[in-house]
């Protein structure tokens, strides 16, 4: 196999917040991302799944350098992005791009679709001829399924799905090699979600992109991912090949996430309801549980889970899991 384009090593992001009064100032540390490592190859898609508060969006931003990591390395084609100066990092934006969650909020309401899509071009190629920019912009609009004659329209004149297409066009206009999609479909109607996922999949095939696709729902990433990483409270619980994961999840949390996906079939839904065991909320991130971080909600926990932190370890089939009982639990559906 070729060398990975992206290698994230032990990446951690801490947020500090101050509480207490003026005199008794206390500092609380929130470990949003806590030692994540993974590799990504060219033309590969990694799905990252977790509940809100699992640190998946923070991880996405830390890879891009939008948030400064507190520890760890982000190796992009052999270069450590976390050590780059601002201008050098800015140059890397040509190669790594991001698509945001809220399609409307991520577009400047005062700019036209054309201006939004071509802004990266103006930024990196200030000498490019206006006509060439326009041609490129129209080409991008066409490619993401927008009518090029709507180049002068404003975001509020597009529907949510179309706005997300503009966001995708903006991310692709510089021909990046890695696109990080931060919950690109969570804010869209289900009927439109499928369109966007299919579009991303097509574009990935056509352009040979590496994709990181963040979602809070395992069903959404299933159709686009080659591998899936499941995150919980800043930690990676499982990193598996797609088919293996959906056939036989290794971690109880993965299995819980799968079971919480609603099924559009009244008869199966009633049965699925009884299978669901994941209840309650995540523990407070300021005060994470000892031992396995998931043990407070895990029905399979044993004594050991409360004391020892399970390391992310490699299974026989090459997948990774952080669970003491991965071998003896059969969570397959």
């Amino acid at each position: 196999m070729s060398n990975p384009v992206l290698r994230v090593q032990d990446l951690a992001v801490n947020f500090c917040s101050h509480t207490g009064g003026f005199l008794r100032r206390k500092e609380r540390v929130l470990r949003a991302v806590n030692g994540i490592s993974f590799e990504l190859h060219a033309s590969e898609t990694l799905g990252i799944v977790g509940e809100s508060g699992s640190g998946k969006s923070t991880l996405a931003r830390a890879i891009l350098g939008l948030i400064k990591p507190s520890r760890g390395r982000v190796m992009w084609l052999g270069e450590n992005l976390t050590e780059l100066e601002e201008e050098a990092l800015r140059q890397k934006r040509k190669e790594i791009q991001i698509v945001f969650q809220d399609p409307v909020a991520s577009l400047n309401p005062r700019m036209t679709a054309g201006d939004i899509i071509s802004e990266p071009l103006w930024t990196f190629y200030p000498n490019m001829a206006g006509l060439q920019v326009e041609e490129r912009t129209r080409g991008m609009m066409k490619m993401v399924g927008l009518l090029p004659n709507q180049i002068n329209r404003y975001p509020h004149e597009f529907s949510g799905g179309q706005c997300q297409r503009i966001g995708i066009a903006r991310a692709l206009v510089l021909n990046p090699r890695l696109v990080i999609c931060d919950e690109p479909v969570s804010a869209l109607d289900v009927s439109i979600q499928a369109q966007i996922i299919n579009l991303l999949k097509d574009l990935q095939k056509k352009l040979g992109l590496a994709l990181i696709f963040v979602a809070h729902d395992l069903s959404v990433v299933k159709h686009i991912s080659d591998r899936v990483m499941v995150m919980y409270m800043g930690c990676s619980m499982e990193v598996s090949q797609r088919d293996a994961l959906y056939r036989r999840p290794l971690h109880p949390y993965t299995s819980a996430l799968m079971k919480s996906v609603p099924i559009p079939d009244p008869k199966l839904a009633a049965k699925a309801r009884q299978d669901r065991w994941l209840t309650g909320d995540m523990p407070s991130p300021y005060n994470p549980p000892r031992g396995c971080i998931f043990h407070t909600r895990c029905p399979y926990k044993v004594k050991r889970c409360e004391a020892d932190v399970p390391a992310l370890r490699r299974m026989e089939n090459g997948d990774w899991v952080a669970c003491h009982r991965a071998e003896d639990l059969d969570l397959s559906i």
Partner: protein
Amino acid sequence: MNSPADMQIADPQVAKTELEDPFAAAMAGQDVRGRSLWVDAWHRLLKNKAAVISGIIMFIMLLLVIVGPLLSPWEGDFTDWDNTASPPNFETGHWFGTDAVGRDILVRTLEGGRISLLVGLVATLVSLAIGVTYGAVAGYYGGFTDRIMMRMVDIIYALPFMFFVILLMVVFGRHIVLIFVAIGAVNWLDMARIVRGQTLGLKNTEFVEAAVACGVDHKAIIRRHIIPNLLGVVMVYVTLTIPQVILVESFLSFLGLGVQEPMSSWGALVNDGAQDMESAPWTLVFPATFLTVTLYCFNYIGDGMRDALDPKDRA
């Protein structure tokens, strides 16, 4: 795999092959025109009767003030010894009457309007330019920069305004430019605070984050993403600042610190008129009416703009 340098930007292949879809080709013939939020706001503003009427009145007022003195047979500083302190009279040609030394009140009111409106506009524009830039920079960079910049604003704020103006007058003598400077120097502080507050909110929006992720540099982000999105608030503030500035100028003139004879302003005229209020009320009434109408109009326009630009109203 190509190295990143080989991945040339505009890949014409992509653009060309894509455009051959007949459906899109048919639709691509004519570009659809977009409706910006400004256009929407403009339409909403046009539905606001008070604002539209105020706008029309202000337009007429501007025309009168600019053209009026040229058409009038009288000069502002001409003394008509035959008609001193005469009430409004169409036969003599002094429509608004004359003051104690026989100067035509109509022409003086219009000429005073020039100064008042000019002070209002220029001082506001000065405070706009300084305040928006200052506030946007402070808000956008945040942290230490922000703290230093805003503390400076606080310090200037703490200077007593009148003391500041009198000091300027004493050092440089009375001059109209000084009035611009004095008022502008105080007004931009408010503007900077408002803009900073708005910028802090805008800085965390996803589209600004998207711009950062696209590699847009800080200056361009402030120029293209921050400032256009806070202009709405700023414009409302400007329309409410203009009358405020006019009032401040009137107040300075009223205290005798404003414009100097033979130049005049509405404030100075009201001051003159107030002294002869009992014997020659018209010297007070006409400039005061012009001043009041202007203030009202700007306030109505400001209110109308606030309603028109309020994003919550968007259907």
